[in-house]
């Protein structure tokens, strides 16, 4: 009976109900997906551009990772390591337009930042930093007189005024900047500007590692951080444990990328997950109410026929099941169309055109497991929301239903 009712009901009405179900499903998945996507893309980009799968960093009370060459040798010998990038970091002063400065009363165009010495090839193999160059070009090993600036050091890309944080004005490709590290001063040309939306990268000055070592007066080969990219399928926890067993943790902090996330990111992740669940729960309630209204209107307009069915001896359960089957039909088709729109339309679209948020490129996260859970929830809600109104109408007095009283 349910099948016949659906098959022979008004096509436009059926299409509208299915459309509403599809939107309801998308509301349930997409809003949460974007919220989660915002933070997930932050985590992804943090991992891809900065920490890698494993991150080895300087212990809190040290200036660098002692015995770095030994640790790097251990890393090189691990079969699960795909690439790694060892970085030197040093705090420094960055000045620009100093030649145009007329007198010392005039405010200097300068800021403080982290100067990072990298092997450009290794860095690019690990973090693909060259793909995030927004102006100019990426460093090469021969760029002894050039640097690459993080975009957030420039007012052009971070137009904020702060007493504690200054940005450089009127700096672009080809501009001269002056770096002061450990009291040593050297002038460089800006070769490229990189923007990853990771503060740790976008607030740095990058140069070739040997130049930084000279400038900072570092005679050893002890680096400050090592980002490791693992071969696909390698469990970061397994890799971390292997490094710890090799003694790498004696002079360095060894963390998986998750452990290396800043606290605010993990806090945001939890907050957004909570928000996503709240929005999802509201979406589920809205979905339930939608189905309830659809089935209730359907049932109430057919109250007379329900009464007649009962009158000729059709059991209440059979009538209720018929309405539940109808509501499941609407939900299944609506959800199926929603899945098509989601995985063939929205997810590829947001991957290709991420939402431009200040701290990440917002993508739509719709993992199959989470989506399957929401499909299950919407089905349970459908069964309940289909059953309740049918029950309300079926429970009415048979004769009252037949006579329309």
């Amino acid at each position, binding site marked *: *009976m349910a099948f*016949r009712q659906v*098959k*022979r*009901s008004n096509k436009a009405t059926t299409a509208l109900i299915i459309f509403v179900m599809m939107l309801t499903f998308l509301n349930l998945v997409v809003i949460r997906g974007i919220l989660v996507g915002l933070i997930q893309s932050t985590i992804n980009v943090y991992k891809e551009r900065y920490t890698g799968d494993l991150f080895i960093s300087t212990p809190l009370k040290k200036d660098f990772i002692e015995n770095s060459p030994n640790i790097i040798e251990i890393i090189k010998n691990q079969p699960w390591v795909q690439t790694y990038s060892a970085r030197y970091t040093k705090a420094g002063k960055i000045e620009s337009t100093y030649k145009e400065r007329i007198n010392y009363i005039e405010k200097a165009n300068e800021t403080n930042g982290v100067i990072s010495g990298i092997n450009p090839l290794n860095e690019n193999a690990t973090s693909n930093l060259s793909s995030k160059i927004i102006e100019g070009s990426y460093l090469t090993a021969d760029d002894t007189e050039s640097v690459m600036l993080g975009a957030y050091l420039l007012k052009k890309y971070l137009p904020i005024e702060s007493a504690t944080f200054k940005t450089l004005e009127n700096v672009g490709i080809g501009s001269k900047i002056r770096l002061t590290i450990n009291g040593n001063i050297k002038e460089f040309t800006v070769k490229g500007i990189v923007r990853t939306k990771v503060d740790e990268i976008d607030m740095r000055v990058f140069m070739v590692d040997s130049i930084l070592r000279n400038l900072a007066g570092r005679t050893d080969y002890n680096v400050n951080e090592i980002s490791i990219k693992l071969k696909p399928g390698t469990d970061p926890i397994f890799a971390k444990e292997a490094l710890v067993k090799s003694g790498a943790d004696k002079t360095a902090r060894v963390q998986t990328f998750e452990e290396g996330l800043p606290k605010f990111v993990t806090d945001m992740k939890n907050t957004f997950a909570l928000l996503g669940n709240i929005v999802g729960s509201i979406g589920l309630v809205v979905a339930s109410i939608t189905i309830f209204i659809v089935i209730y209107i359907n049932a109430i307009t057919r109250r007379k026929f329900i009464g007649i069915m*009962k*009158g*000729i*001896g*059709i059991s209440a359960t059979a009538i209720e099941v018929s309405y539940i089957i109808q509501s499941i039909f609407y939900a299944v088709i609506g959800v199926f169309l929603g899945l098509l729109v989601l995985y063939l339309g929205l997810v590829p679209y947001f991957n290709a055109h991420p939402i431009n948020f200040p701290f990440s490129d917002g993508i739509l996260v719709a993992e199959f497991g989470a989506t399957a859970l929401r499909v299950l929830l919407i089905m349970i809600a459908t069964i309940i929301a289909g059953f309740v109104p049918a029950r309300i109408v079926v429970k009415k007095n048979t004769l009252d239903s037949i006579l329309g009283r």
Partner: protein
Amino acid sequence: MSKIIEVKNLRKSFKTGDSELVVLNDMTFDIASGDFFAITGRSGSGKSTLLYQLGLLDHPNVGEIVINGINVSTLNNEGRTKFRLKELGYVFQDYALVPELNSIENVAIPLLMQGLEREEAYQKSEAALQKIGMGEKLSNLPFQLSGGEQQRVSIARAIAHDPKIIFADEPTANLDSETADNVMKAFLELNSHGQTIIMVTHEPEYARLTNRVVKIGDGKILMDGKPGDVL
């Protein structure tokens, strides 16, 4: 003829505010198996109310109804539903067909609910429709049928499961006279084969076609007998 229905001290009243409107008051009568039994009376006299009590669509306040030896007054809702499904057939004034189901599907519903296999249910439904002269319109939806044809499908639905009794509530009220005549012919044909029919009608010409008429008014049976004596 054996008694198929025994009604004892039947009373049905409705609350209207603080007062009580007594529609059926202490009625006692029997109906024999194979009767074509007409209930007549003025508008508001309680004809349909009596039919609903006999057809187990409503509960009397007081009294006992025994159908085919079973005291149906003691049945619970589930028992009454099953009893209606197996033993009784209904024809309503406005046909009461499910709009999304075609003729044969409308007729087959009670059979399928009785647990018959689909093939058997459809065979029986087709036979019932052919019996009533609707064998050519098995696949028509209700809106594709005239009022008379819909009513005949409704009769086919009522008889398909060989019920003990058919209850018809003003089955000709919505039909033109020619169509109404055809419906009555269908009832008479069924009755001629021993089918018990209880029909409410306010049209004397159709009540005259039955073999027993009760006229009710003021909650009581005013007259009971052959049509020629009552009408």
